[in-house]
Every structure is written in C-alpha cells, then in structure tokens.
C-alpha cells in the first residue's frame, strides 16, 4: 500500500470515530438537505433542468478547442491576457512572475479550488507575497493552516466556539462567539487587505465563449472586491469551465445555486469581460485569465470518463455521500474530496497513488441522483477500479481472494463446501477467543463492530427444508 492509501485509512478510521465532528457535519448536511428541498420545489421540472445543463456542458466539452479559442479571442479583443498552463507549476510561475514584475506585495483571493489544486498560495508566499483568503470559510481554514474541508463550505467542520477561539488567538481581542460578530471581525480585517492589495486572484465558475467573459458566483461579495479594487485581476480556471453562450447562465446560475446551497440564485453572479475601460471610474488596469490543463486534456481523451469534465463543483455529491459524511473532507488527503474527488483525483494526480479512493465506496449511487449535470459517478468509480486492477495496482491477496471466490461460486458443490468451511472456521475462531484480536481473519470488520452470531443452519439448508430440494 502506498503512503497516500495508508494515510487515507488511518485518517478515515480516526474521523469515523470522531463523534463531535459527525455532529457538526450532520448538522451542516441536514441544514443543506432541507434548503435543497425548498430550492428544488422552485423548479417546475428539476429533471429537465439537469438534462439541459448536461447538454450545455456536453456541447462545450465535445468542442472544447473551438470554445476556448473563441473565449481567448474575445478576451484579447477587450485588452485582457490569456495564458495557457499545462501544469500547476506553469500556472503558478505565470502568476508569481506577474506579481514580481508588478511589485505586488499583497494578494487578495476569493475562493478557488483550482488555486488550491495548483498550490498557488505557497508559490506566492515563497516569493515573499502576503496572501489573504477572503471567503469567510477559506479565511478561517487559512488561519488554521489547513486545506478546505468541503469544496463549497470550507469550514463546515468547525463550531462557532472553535472559530471564536481561533480568531482570539490569531487576530486578538475577539470576545464573542456570535456568528454575526465573528463575521464582522473578519470583514474589518479583510477590508484593510482589499484596499491595500495590488493583485486580486479569483477562480471562475464559467468561462463564457460568446462574450469572452468569466462568470464568478459568490454570496459574500468577496470575489467582486477581489476583481474590482486591486490594480491587477487574475482569474484561474480549468479548461473545462468554458460554456458556449451567456444565455446558458440563465439556467446554470439557478441550478448551481440550488445544488450548491439550496438558494434560488446566489447573491452575486458577476461577469467580467476585461480591465476597466476609459469611461469607467474603477476596476483593475490589467485582467489575466490562466487556463489550466493539468491532466484535463488527458481525461478528455478517455471516452468513458470524459463526462467527469462536466462537473460544475457544486458539492452536492459530497453532501449526499455516506462516506464523506462519515470520514469528512480532510481524510481523503486530496484537494477534491467526496465522490467527484475519488473519481477525478486519479486522473489529475495519477492512478497509482490515488486508485484506493475509488474502492472506498459502497456504490450506493446517491451522488449520481443529486448531480445537477447528471455525471454517472458510481460508474466512474467502477471504471477507476477496473483500470486499477488492469494496471496491477491492487494487492495480490485481493486478486487471489476474488479468484478463489469466483472458483467457489461457479460450482454448487464447491460453494457448499466453502460455505461450510467458512462457518466452521468462524465458529472455531470464536470458540478460541480470536474474534477482534490480531489473529482474527475478519479483524478489519470486527475491530470496530460486533460480529453477528452465525446461525445453526445455512440459508441453503433452510431453503431445502422448507421448499424441498428442487
């Protein structure tokens, strides 16, 4: 087992046993579920909405080159710059070089999972640049020096008491635990940063080809401040974010909001087409868009899994996932967690190191039911599993075990014999007091759970008794 898989098992076991964490995550998810139910009720036909969103994304992904070139041309026409980055390093280098050239000392950032993916903050900080995360949840996890717990609600694992203690320690003089007042503290702190920063970095929820616009969705207004006040605005987005037309947003915006938080529409849906024009009173002098590949074009070349690029990062599959709800976002050890993270990460960072995540699922299918662009996530988990097995990345005993199992299942006699042997062996192990100890063959299961008593008769024996031998 590699280091990432070992760490995953260790962290997952630890968080699965953390009752306090479960309570706060459950509270968050229940709140979300209720809001989404209200949100969906606003649609006459939610299913039709999902289908149309899928169609929009598919249209863009299937002709990605054309839409990206159209987007780039229009951004250039308006005086913006487009940089194509093959890797995380390329993207970071472009932004840090730009910052160095312009004498940037402070950067304000709005929430961007792509910037987490490329580890932009670390790259800027090694160049001596101060970076402020300005989304409240991101600000909190940045102060804690940890990654976001969830792609939409980064601090969903923390109580107000923990956040208050954090603010008291890091910001000083904070006496309150009231969310309203804690938010006001962050607002005051970050306002100073907004007005002093020379560069604002944002993500983009969509890149609109026909308008050369980036679309950013936030509730707090921090992305608007990041893209309005500093002299330079840099937006970083994966190449899969492009959509054909501005009119598509009339559907994508409410669907993203409903799936993401249950809102009818998010508070601020902002389109930016370029730097300030001569007649405008404010806005940045420079506008840059970094288009990030970082493994996406490779995923595009996989006809089975191309649709994973349709993802709009709403976080619905995380909230629906019983595994995410149990182990939380940090245990995954990846930037993208939950079902979409388990599917996507092997493509971005290598199957060898991250295939184990696709096995940590009961394939219940809840993620596919809630996905607003109808990505068949369980199928992709299965395909990752198949690919991992074909590449010889699974342990030898697993392969042997399944061969043995198939061999036993293929023949009635063998099946009966194996059933008997398993029942007998288990009884012996219990009688010898091995259950739950290091010698227990079923220790993975029994160390945290009671093993049910094995009934006297097997199912087949009972069936024969009541239904006859036929």
């Amino acid at each position, binding site marked *: 087992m590699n280091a990432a898989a070992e760490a995953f098992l260790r962290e997952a076991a630890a968080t699965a046993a953390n009752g306090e964490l479960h309570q706060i995550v459950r509270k968050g998810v229940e709140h979300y579920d209720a809001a989404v139910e209200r949100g969906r009720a606003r649609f006459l036909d939610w299913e039709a909405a999902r289908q149309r969103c899928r169609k929009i994304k598919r249209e863009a992904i299937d002709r990605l080159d054309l839409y*990206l070139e159209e987007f780039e041309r229009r951004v250039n026409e308006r005086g913006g710059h487009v940089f194509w980055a093959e890797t995380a390093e390329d993207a970071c280098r472009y932004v840090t070089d730009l910052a160095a050239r312009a004498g940037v000392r402070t950067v304000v950032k709005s929430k961007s999972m792509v910037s987490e993916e490329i580890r932009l903050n670390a790259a800027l900080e090694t160049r001596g640049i101060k970076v402020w995360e300005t989304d409240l949840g991101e600000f909190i996890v940045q102060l804690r020096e940890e990654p976001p717990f969830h792609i939409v609600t980064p*601090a969903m694992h923390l109580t107000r008491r923990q956040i208050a203690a954090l603010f008291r320690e890091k910001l000083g003089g904070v006496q309150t635990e009231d969310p309203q007042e804690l*938010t006001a503290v962050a607002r005051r702190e970050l306002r100073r940063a907004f007005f002093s920063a020379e560069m604002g970095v944002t993500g983009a929820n969509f890149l609109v080809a026909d308008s050369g616009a980036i679309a950013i969705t936030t509730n707090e207004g921090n992305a608007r401040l990041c893209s*309005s006040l500093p002299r330079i605005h840099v937006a970083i987005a994966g190449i899969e974010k492009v959509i054909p037309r501005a*009119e598509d947003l*009339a559907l994508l915006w409410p669907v993203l909001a409903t799936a993401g938080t249950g809102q*009818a529409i998010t508070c*601020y849906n902002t389109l930016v087409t370029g730097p300030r024009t001569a007649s*405008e*009173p404010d806005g940045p002098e420079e506008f840059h868009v970094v288009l990030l590949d970082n493994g996406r074009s490779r995923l595009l070349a996989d006809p089975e899994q191309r649709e994973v690029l349709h993802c709009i990062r709403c976080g619905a599959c995380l909230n629906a996932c019983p595994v995410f709800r149990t182990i939380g976002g940090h245990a995954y050890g990846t930037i993208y967690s939950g079902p979409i993270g388990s599917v996507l990460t092997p493509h971005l960072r290598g199957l060898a190191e991250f295939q184990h995540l696709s096995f940590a699922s009961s394939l219940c299918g809840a993620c596919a039911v809630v996905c607003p662009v109808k990505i068949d996530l369980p199928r992709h988990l299965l395909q990752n599993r198949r690919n991992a097995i074909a590449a010889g990345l699974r342990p030898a005993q697993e392969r042997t075990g399944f061969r043995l199992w198939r061999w036993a299942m293929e023949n009635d006699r063998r099946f009966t014999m194996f059933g008997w042997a398993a029942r007998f062996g288990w009884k012996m192990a219990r009688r010898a007091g091995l259950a739950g100890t290091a010698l227990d063959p079923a220790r993975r299961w029994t160390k945290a759970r009671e093993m049910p008593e094995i009934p006297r008769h097997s199912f087949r024996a009972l069936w024969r008794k009541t239904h006859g031998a036929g």
Partner: protein
Amino acid sequence: MAQVENPARERILARIRAATRSVPSSRTAPDARPIFAPVSGPLERFRAECAANATECIVVETASERGRALADLLGGIPEGEIFAQDSPKVRRALALSGTRQIRWSSEGAPSENSQAGVTLAEALVAQTGSVVVSTACGGRGASLVPPVHIVLADTSQLAPDLPAAMETIRRNGTLMACSSVCVITGPSRTADIEKILVLGAHGPRRLVVLISRESD
C-alpha cells in the same frame, strides 16, 4: 505589457483536438420542456422574492415620489459621503436630498467610508428578485463598497425571468460596452459559520430598490 511566450497553448489545443476528433455530434432535438413556471404579475413576484431574499423594495407612483423616498432613506443613513452614479436621472433624484455630501462616479471610485451607493440598474428580474447592474451604473464599487446600495428603477425595467434579463443585456450590448455586469440578489451574505445566515459579509448589508410605476 509584453506578450508572454506561451508554447503550451498549441500543445494543449492539439491534445484537445486529438481527444475530441472522434466525438460524434451530440446534436439532439431541442428540449422544449418548461423548467420554471412562467412568471405572471412581475411586480408582485419581484416584491415577494425581495421579501424572501432580504432586499428592501419600495414601490411608488412617479419619479418625483421616488426622489422623495430616496431623500427619506438617506435621512436615516449616517453622516458622510454618498457615492452616486453620475447620470441625469440620479442627479434629479438626489436634488431632493438637500445637503448630503455626494461623490459622483465621474469623479472616480467610491471611498472606503462611503455610507451609501446610489445607482440605476440595467434590469430587474422578477423570477428571482434580482437587480442587474453594470459598470455603467457608477462602476464596480458603487454597488459593492458602501454598506448600503440603493437602486433607482421603474417597472418598465422588470424582466419576468433570467432568460429575459440576459436577452435584455444582449440586446443592449451591455457586455460589449461594460467590463463587468453583476446580477445581484439581496444583500451580501454568508453562512460559513455553522450554516447560520449573516448579512453583510463583504458587500452591502442593505440593498434597497426604489421602483416607480412611471418611467422617467
């Protein structure tokens, strides 16, 4: 700025083209199923949505009544600068507000301690209770930096739903003329601490829409 060398561009595009070359055309019959119920009575719907998203919506008959409502509103706002979109309509409305200190968008960006921003809108959206503003509405900061954003509008600007609002934007060439457009729905908010709703996270704590039934 000097053009940055970007050899990766061709490589990425080549990979994309190779990856999508064999993709069959996904053209399917247009899906005509309605997704939202049609909006009837846009003004009533707009008011109901505003009530739900914490926008203060005041409807009056004439433009001059709207000016008086604005004066009343500003009377309740602390001393200090009011930032306003420099347009004849806003100037007429603010003429009724007496001696308030006003900074016009033609003089630059709003200062950090502006007390309110007064702007027009590109459109109102009944379906969601949203206000569409562009950089032509006093720039980017007018609807963002001050703690209160006041919008002067009239009922002719009401689009029934988002597709209609986007069509208005397209028809008016707003995205061509302006470097930014924003669909605003309620005051700034966050629920990042225990999912508890807090208004006024980074943007305005109050959003007030003054609508007159008569256009001016």
